[in-house]
């Protein structure tokens, strides 16, 4: 099971849950599972969430594999000037 950590900014959408373990094979599955478990989070996931998988940040990378023992962190997407 991959260890999933949510940025503290997402707490309001997950009834405060910021850490959980999920058996997901890639980012798309991760978002799907989270969206089903926390409907409020759905909009946030769509509105732009990046994931850090084992320290590397990925934006818009739904097919990025997640290993069984991966550490995954959800953070807000970054744009810029």
């Amino acid at each position, binding site marked *: 099971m991959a260890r999933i950590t949510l940025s503290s900014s997402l707490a309001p959408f997950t009834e405060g849950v910021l850490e959980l373990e999920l058996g997901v094979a890639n980012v798309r599955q991760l978002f799907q599972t989270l969206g089903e478990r926390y409907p409020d989070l759905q909009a946030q996931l769509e509105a732009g969430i990046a994931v850090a998988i084992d320290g590397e940040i990925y934006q818009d990378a739904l097919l990025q594999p997640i290993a069984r023992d991966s550490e995954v962190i959800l953070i807000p997407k*970054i744009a810029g*000037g």
Partner: protein
Amino acid sequence: MSTMLKYQEKKLKIVGTRPLRPDGVDKVTGRARFGADYNLPGQLIGKVLRSPHAHARIKSIDTSAALALPGVKAVVTRDDFAEMPDEMAAVGELMINFRDVTRNMMAREKALYDGHPVAAVAATTEAVAKAALALIKVEYEVLPHVIDVVEAMQPGAPLLHEDQYTQGVKPKPERPSNVAKRLEFGHGDVAAGFKQAEVIVEREFNTKPVHQGYIEPQACLASYSADGQAELWTSTQGHFVFRAQCAKVLQMDISKIRVTPTEIGGGFGGKNNIYNEALAITLSRKAGHPVKMVMTREEVFRGTGPTPGANVKVKIGCTRDGKITAAQAELNFQAGAFPGSPVNQASMCAFTRYDLANVHVVGNDVTVNRPKVAAYRAPGAPIAVFGVESVIDEMAKKLGIDPIEFRLRNAAKEGTQTYYGPKLGPIGYIQTLEAARAHPHYSAPLGPNQGRGVATGFWFNIGNETTCSLNLQEDGTLTLMLGTIDVAGGSRASMAMMVAEELGIAFDRVRPVVGDTSSLGFNFLTAGSRSTFASGMASVIAARQVIEKLRQRVAQIREVPLEAVAWKDGQAQPVDSSVQQFSPMTLAEIARMAGKTGGTVAGHAEINAQGAGPGFGTHIVDVEVDKETGAVRILRYTAVQDVGKAIHPAYVEGQLQGGAAQGIGWALNEEYVYGEDGVLQNPGFLDYRIPVASDLPFIDTVIVEVPNPNHPYGVRGCGEVPIIAPMAAIANAIENAIGLRLCEQPFSPPRVLKAIDEAAAAKR
């Protein structure tokens, strides 16, 4: 699928040198064509009517008199644009609420700021168009307005959006609010952290909105054909994103809009989103002629996005020996008329230069009756960092520790756990601090009323969607077709340099051009310091594809196994003496035979670049304060930054110097000045004071290169970091010069003199 290309150290021939930019000659001869330099036969001139009120209900708009004026060919108002649902929708990689986009480009129920478009006309001449605007009758019901962020957050403040409820608060609030969104970041236990603290410094800061100040006003030319195809020439940081936004608001197929980017006369984030483009296409459709729209400087200030003004509270606790035990901040950001300030990025940048166990940051995104904010170089970060680095400096002074030493004791490094998410990878923050401390500037003597300040900045840098094509021409030269705009930095040169390096050929063998939206797949904006990182990665991939195809072609031509063929120094040659020998073939030789041996050779990359490496910078500034007038003069400035790898050092220096200069303007004199009536009072370069040549010294630069492991040449990106530190560095320098801590930006003479006089009065 995401792409990451690992860094390989190797001997470089071209990367790191300073060849001349391919757009140079056109720009010094006047031949380069910018937004306003494009014209079409039969074109009309489009002009926008803007609200004179900060907040007003639009009861009616009567355009009949304008339409009756000879020479007027079309008028558009809110009625010409479809209502969009209130939901975040994707355009490329931006998630935007198109309900807001349609309302910002053309007011619907209400005008929400001075300068908000309410109608637009297309006419045979500019004079006729202006006359027509004067004939449009708009009936307003003026409403109470609010432009101050703290006032806007109070219950009972005038509401911009009656149906806006603060997001990110559970349970959902019962009353609507100007606070569009509240977000929190942090880790550890700040309460416990402050208990451990032996010294605590707490301060409140306020900043005004500042404008990107690009010298080229927004300009576009649209031509809509009766068959439903539209062509658009516009000055943009992302032609694919503009196309997507226009298609969405005009409900057109993306493939039916072709956007050709012009040379862009500065953007800095201000040309990330459409303003007149969709109006011009609609006017062209209704008039049956091409329509050209060029903003005046006044329109640029009143109608396009500044960066937010903000209210910032910072509290830091520390042990006597200089270890930070807790850090806390509240960031209240003006979003302008619609939600979407960069407060989330500001929240993440606030403390991410330090290795902290206990952090808590609250951010509020607040709508006010001002233009909708747009990105500006490291959006939001300079505002948060002004507060944090001011407090850090005050803390160092309280503890009697050298400000750089204090930062070093708490500096973030590889493995540091950020409070917003991941651990940091290999970074060069400490190296920039040490380089700054070792720089002669840091130990140079100072005179009376002079002071030195230091501050540091962090920016994520990003990757994202990028495409390019590399075509081998019949004579062995190559054309590199790029999809990311060269906003000024010289990225065309950098991309060509990386391709030439890969192929082992001369820089001038590769001609880089930026293609229109029909020549390549989607590219994200040139923003977030991504271009040289992401487009560079794409260019390298395309070059390596070309090399692979060249090796295969030579193996066939020379009838040797593929493994025997190596690509070295611009030619195919035997891997070594152990393999079947053959006479080498140069690029030109292969190119000449290509057509007869299976066709030409090309490389393509369609990637979503990942693995951007964070950038850090340390700035040193000396100021002199005239205690009788409050005038602050910048005497000396040094910008140190880890850029990963400087592909073209001269253009990297240019980014550091330009960013620092913008930060200096922000600190000293730039601000939006509004009257009681909510009307902007300084919409021009006379009273919106960006630095002039005689205001600035030479800006010394030190480039630190800690390679980003996720880029073939180690590139991190460099455009945004340099604007983050100046405001704080200058505040710290002023404090060291006159012993007064300024917490209100800008540090303009009246403010500085007031502070001096109040301090003197307090002494008495």
